[in-house]
């Protein structure tokens, strides 16, 4: 007697979250919170670099955006970008953030920027261009929020505001997009992603 319960054909990727997806997403977000915390206490040391043109501080803002892209690349479920960015924001708020509770709104908007890109590809593509676009999306949404919604920089001229948006979008592409993509491939090589849909990320085509 041999009943093999192997499925007849390839199943389409399921969009529902399993427990392991939820918990790993949460822990990626919480680790990001730890990294935010380490970053929080050091990044003002870099401020002198940006004194010449203050909007250029946005060049390192991608550090706040990577959980969204990394979470989505690793978990590959609808809502992963949003969930990871929100929980990371929640952790940094609970640890004490200079942005107070507004960090939750920022997290929501940044997460939506990345989520929109993954949704546009129907959660089927997780290659380098999509990762870079998602980083750009998070940077664009986040910077428009900073400059035109929360208006953290009322003293900036319009030109400076747009420079800020451009810088944060670039930062999103490089730090949140590229680094998250490389990190996902490196994580897949360690076998740590064995329980997830991204387990083969290291051998998938880059483009």
């Amino acid at each position: 007697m041999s009943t093999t319960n192997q499925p007849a054909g390839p199943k389409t990727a399921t969009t529902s979250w399993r427990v392991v997806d939820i918990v790993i997403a949460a822990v990626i977000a919480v680790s990001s919170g730890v990294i935010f915390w380490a970053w929080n206490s050091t990044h003002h040391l870099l401020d002198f670099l940006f004194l010449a043109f203050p909007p250029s501080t946005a060049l390192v803002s991608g550090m706040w955006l990577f959980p969204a892209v990394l979470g989505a690349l690793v978990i590959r479920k609808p809502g992963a970008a949003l969930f990871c960015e929100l929980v990371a924001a929640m952790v940094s708020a609970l640890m004490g953030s200079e942005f107070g509770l507004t960090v939750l709104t920022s997290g929501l908007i940044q997460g939506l920027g990345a989520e929109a890109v993954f949704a546009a590809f129907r959660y089927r593509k997780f290659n380098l261009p999509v990762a870079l676009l998602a980083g750009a999306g998070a940077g664009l949404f986040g910077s428009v929020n900073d400059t035109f919604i929360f208006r953290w920089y009322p003293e900036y001229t319009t030109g400076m505001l747009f420079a800020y948006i451009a810088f944060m979008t670039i930062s999103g592409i490089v730090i949140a997009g590229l680094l998250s993509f490389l990190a996902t491939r490196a994580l897949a090589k360690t076998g740590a992603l064995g329980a997830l849909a991204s387990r083969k990320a290291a051998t998938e085509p880059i483009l």
Partner: protein
Amino acid sequence: MSSPSMLHREADAPGQARRLSAPVSVSARNWGWRHADRAQPALWGLDLDIRAGERVLLAGPSGAGKSTLLYALAGVLHEDDEAYSSGELLLDGTPVAQGRGLVGLMQQDPETQVVQARVGDDVAFGAENLSVPPEEIARRIVDALDAVGLDVPLEHPTAALSGGQKQRLALAGILAMGPGLVLLDEPTANLDPAGVLEVRDAVIRALDATGATLLIVEHRLEAWAPHMDRVIVLEPGGGIAHEGTPDELFGPGAVRGELISAGVWVPGYTPAIEARPNTGSSGALLLEAGSLAVARKRGGPVAAGGLEMRVAAGEAWSVRGANGSGKSTFALTLGGLLPQASGTVLATAELAAGSEARPYHWRATELVGRIGSVFQEPEHQFVTNTVAEELAFGPAHAVKPGTREPLFTQPEIESRVESLLARLRLGHLAEANPFTLSGGEKRRLSVATVLASSPQVLILDEPTFGQDANTWRELALLLREELAHGTAIIAVTHDADFARALGANEFVLDAPGGRDGNPETGARPGLLQADARGGASFLGRANPLAKLAAVALATIPLVASMDWVSSSLVVLATILALPLAGLSIPRFLARGWPLLLAALFGAWGTALVGNDSGAVLLDLGIFDITEGSLAAGAATGMRAFAVAIPAVLVLFTTDPTDLANALAQKARLPHRFVLGALAGMRLLGLLIEEWTTLGMARRARGVGSRGSVGQRMRANLGQVFGLLVQAIRRASRLAVTMEAKGFGTNARTWLRTSAYGRRDAAIVAAGLLLGAAATWAALALGTWNLVWT
């Protein structure tokens, strides 16, 4: 607010889940499982029958699929397009998928067996997921804690428990679910000998009471074998190799011999190595500790004090002591990885070779050629992508003391890598990713990477934990060779046989705190945990959602307007409200100073670039500060501060568990996501600790925190990556724990009810009033300055 006494049910409990299950039988019919990321099935063609109430020990070489069988029975293996089963696996004659609530599972890593922050909540977690009525859960918590002999208050933080206590807590959580089958996957592999017996006794006592069927996988069989009805030995990739009573299989005979050659720790067996004679100190003195006191954190509590040790070449030391006696901290301090709390750690002229004598002050690249430290978790020390690079890394980075000259030439490095690969039988894995090796291979590699740069002193923390008998023997032989070559070895170990095999002198640390509690790894309070005084304060007893709403209402005018009047009013109101959070000004500043600093940075930036008007106050070349820009700077800084500090009132007084309960019960967010995030947050303290450990583990490999900006950046990114790997591994185990406890379905009950009261209405009203008052005052004084215009 929430309290265990206010009981509340969200959903109707299915009838069968309310009762404790009767003992369950297990049967497999030609069953097999293939994991998604493997070419070969973990198990194939398994036929098995276990009677209800039977106690069975699963043994076999690593890779025989023992854990896979347990996970399948616990219902945490899922089929998808790459992972699938064959045949049938039945509980009481029905497929395992329908066995929710019948089965409890405990894994090896104590840290990921705990889901909640408080002892009572953690015991309740599984029963809540099975929709057991809260009043019944409250009863079961008391019974379960009693059955495992864990006598701590229900509110006790789970992070403050020792490893053995955590495993007993996990068992209590399983018992509270009332399962008919208990599965234990190496439940004591991470524990010291006292912890092993403590957990073993709790398991046996609890099962004597419930009569549940027991299936256990263990490496070290001695403690468990006498309590088992039957032993089943699995064959790698196949079915059952042998089965019988413990006496039949472990008594002298062919089976015993076969098990021994597969590396199984059969009772009464220690790998035969002639004891190394303790020759006494004969070599040159290398390292000296004098009146040493050690602490995990600079200025933190002293873990052990009054330590004197003189380590000579070719000498072995075993460091023993109970949990929390500061063994690991002592080893890290000797290894030049932690600064001493007081006293001295000095390298002799022989070891220092003319440079600085204090190892802690050596650069990482100077350290690796002199003192090597092997950490308990091998993965903490992996820094490259292949086994061969891993071995070459240390020698390639090692420098001569006090210089930047390489210690080894390229041909020397290559020959060292070749010889270590051969000596440790890792040659076929030279190009493999270190993280993908088996447990025993990882251990051998982590020792080899440190030996590669031939340190004169080698320090190892629990090198034999969780290792099979074959790896144990190889390690012992390898270290004996090193001793013969004149290396000094210090091993923190509970393993008396291992110490004997090394011919080690004994160094015993007294336990200051006794066995309860875990001062060595710290109780980790503070982070993400409401302050004790804050929790008992007026705001501490309020519903978290009311506090969040109040802060949001008060923040609206700050976001809308850039003016110093509304901001100052909110800052003032927050300071006046500090007593409601149980906070004094100094305690507030102790936590809130970074926020103040950030506000000052914001003010400074605006003062520099803001629209200039009025008199120039300070001229810095391109930028200047004028009266106009200074006023704008003050408004910016005050606004930033006002946005930040009301949140301090919330974070000082809000327990994340209460927040999660409120979000799931009152805000109606999906509880799977809320509780998943909460469980992740519980790992935060652990991850911060892991970050620190990673820093030390990488320094021991020669990755320094000093150097050029590029080097530091690379070192930091490497450490971030290491943290992510560990975080995801822990998360995977935590997910198994949660799922095995029935988590993930739609209906559940809640032990703690989240409710609104008058206090909460008053808090929301206060927030609304403050927001309105701030707006009114700014308008009245003419400073209102809408940011969107």
